[in-house]
């Protein structure tokens, strides 16, 4: 991973554990399932989409907020960097 992708990953991981899960100590592993495991419930997917749009200027369409588009931190970082 380049520095850029590491930064993107750690910012998102920090947002998920701190803001969504309200448990900053919780470590999000790069290949950990986020959506299909229920770690991020559907009510928080919108939040994650808005966060990504604000921070990285990458738009993830509403219809892409599902486990088919991304289910892990790695996949999400891939989606973001491919669109930057």
């Amino acid at each position, binding site marked *: 991973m380049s520095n850029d992708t590491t930064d993107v990953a750690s910012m998102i991981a920090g947002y998920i554990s701190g803001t969504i899960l309200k448990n900053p100590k919780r470590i999000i592993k790069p290949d950990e399932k986020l959506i299909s*495991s229920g770690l991020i*419930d*559907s*009510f928080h*997917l*919108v939040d994650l989409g808005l966060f990504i749009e604000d921070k990285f200027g990458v738009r993830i369409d*509403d219809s892409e907020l599902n486990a088919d588009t991304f289910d892990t931190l790695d996949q999400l970082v891939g989606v973001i960097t491919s669109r930057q």
Partner: protein
Amino acid sequence: MAPSGPPAACLYAAMPTFSYVLAQTYTDAPDRPAIHLQFAKRDDVTLTHRDLVRGATGFAAVLAGENIQPGEVVVIIQHHGEALVYAFWGAILHGAVPAILPPLTEKLLPERYRHDLSALIGITQPAAVITYADFAGEVQAAIDASSVTRKPKCIAVNVVTPAEPDFAALGGMRRTEDDIVLLQHSSGSTGLQKGVALSHLSVFNQLDAYAPAIGLTERDVIVSWLPLYHDMGLIASFLLPVLKRVPLVLMSPFDWVRAPGKLMQAVSKYRGTLTWLPNFAYNFCATRARDRDLEGVDLSSLRAVINCSEPVYDSSQRAFAAKFGRYGLRETALATCYAMAENTFAVTQSAIGQPVRLNEGGGIGNAGQVSSGRPLPNVQVRVLDESHNDVAQGTIGEIALKSDCMLSEYYHRPDATAQAFHDGWYLTGDLGYMLDGELFVTGRKKDLIIVGGKNVYPQDLEQLAGEVDGVHAGRVAAFGVFNESAGTEDVVVVAEAESEDEAAREQVAESVRQYITRNSDVAVRHVVLVDARWLVKTSSGKVARSANKAKYLEEQALGQPDTQG
């Protein structure tokens, strides 16, 4: 806005059955839009009443071809779209009894879904399960695993071929008003085992009492994202519009949750006048609707946004009004309703176009308690003490009902039906009080969690948590804790751990959270592992949920115990 136009029609001079009303509308107003279906990636599809009946007739032919008999139950598992609409009304025209169930979601384990569906088949004994081609294998596996001797057919239908109706030949035209017209289930392993069976007459009695209570006219337009496997979605936002000839704009709950602003866009596009939302959706729309989704949106056509199906909070109503006032939403459009599937739908309704009454200081902390309005004219409400005697006005007790729109029974569950009634009164398990003829709902006697408008049975979650390694089986308590910013309850699970090691507990807490989500589709906000003998038990040895909730809240306030999850 004062109701304008003629009141919504009473359409069943011959026989109050669904099929008669469909036939009548097909004759009188075939070109009237019945449902505008909205999709995430396709243009809207408008079904007129002609389209609806022709599609339903095509579906009824499929059921006839499979030798399904009138009066038999057909379970419908379809995603949002034409096939779901035609399957439901096709079952009706055929005279079968539809029961719509939720599809499998990506969070839920297929094995758990199969298990719950098998159990439901065992109790309900449907003649068929209707689904889409990709899911037929899963449904067939559930059928094979079920305990019934006469296995239901699995019918996969993706596209329905419309057909001209010959009403005289349709089984639905021979149903009578007291026949059961549909079954409704709530979610979870426990909820799925109690299908609320409603007669044609009960549904019409509800609609005929409810329509005037909301001033329904043929000029209304109802907008909904609610799922049809829920009473608020099925009755208020599907049957009411179709049977009363009021156009419906219907979108998928899965599309709405990813972009709540779509509800406002739909209202604006179709000049929507009525919508029903659970309390959490007020907060969710207010905080999550993107500004770019609201550009140019005009909500001035809305004459009622009705808060129903979970406890109503003034803070949620105010957040919604504050956010959408600038888009033309009138504050007097905010309305409330108290409803349940066992009464078909509404028990009470606040006066439309008037501010909802607030009982100052009656709610949590110093918040006002929001009124749910007055009972419908056909519903009697009593508030009872533990010995089933009436309490004084303003005193909290259990809400009991008697009406002409009650369930016929819990389908194939005479035990549960008998248990639900006392002396002819349906005991709701909800707590509340009456004040000047208005009902204020304060809480629940039964240990039910309502999260995001969905009923969750804590015993289901406790059972699952007990199956996780590292948890003392039988030593788990699940309960809901109100989260003001979300406008709904957070699910909390407290479990006694076998290990005292903190890292090990963290691992177990994570496993519990995941295991519950994947087996119940319920997101758990907080898993707390505690020492042995932390949980309070009743004298009969059962885990006392309310006492454990109180203890949890007390320890949270003190900053302990060590919590994970």
